[in-house]
């Protein structure tokens, strides 16, 4: 079981690296926002795996909060994009 947990953590860390490449390269601001949303979703998964690894179920509350923050950040970015404002992609 420990090996499986380690493997899934490594895979998700690799996914975070790939998403970070898109954050750096992304040609426009909406692409970066999509990549950041994938970040928050992947971190929710990592926290879930860590909850299994450590045996502390309270980490799932942290996962709920992270998912909520990611959603609110996406909504806020979208409002910012549509309302206009100074942009420097």
């Amino acid at each position: 079981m420990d090996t499986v947990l380690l493997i899934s953590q490594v895979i998700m860390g690799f996914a975070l690296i790939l998403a970070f490449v898109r954050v750096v390269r992304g040609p426009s601001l909406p692409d970066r926002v999509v990549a950041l949303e994938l970040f928050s979703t992947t971190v929710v998964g990592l926290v879930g795996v860590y909850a299994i690894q450590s045996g502390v179920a309270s980490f799932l509350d942290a996962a709920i909060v992270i998912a909520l923050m990611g959603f609110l950040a996406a909504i806020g970015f979208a409002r910012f994009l549509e309302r206009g404002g100074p942009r420097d992609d």
Partner: protein
Amino acid sequence: MIEAIKGGLLITGSLFMLLAAVGLLRLPDLLTRMHATTKAAALGVILIMLAAAMHFSEVGVVARSFAIIVFILMTAPVAAHVIGRAGYFVGSRLWSGTVKDELRPNYDPLTHELKSGLETQENAKRQPRANDPD
């Protein structure tokens, strides 16, 4: 037995997340990238939370992981819709192989007016029904 199911769920969920990241990196424009990340990452989180629920197998923890699943299922489409709409209106370029963009001929980005394509003189006439109140 339950260990094997848990391990399978964990590995599959993390592989779906990796798939979402690869799609985000490899696909050509904003909308295709979003279609990869939203669905695959949501499925990955769902599988991992199912594994967590099976691992702890207490009422409170199962309820919390199902709350996370329901939350992801409700918020992922909304966030994708909002970001896709904003990206379209900001003017992010579509892929050169895009077959159909039905919004472009019918939508005026300056006045935010959406035409249906049926605005003829014939359709603009009032056609009273028999049971109209006036």
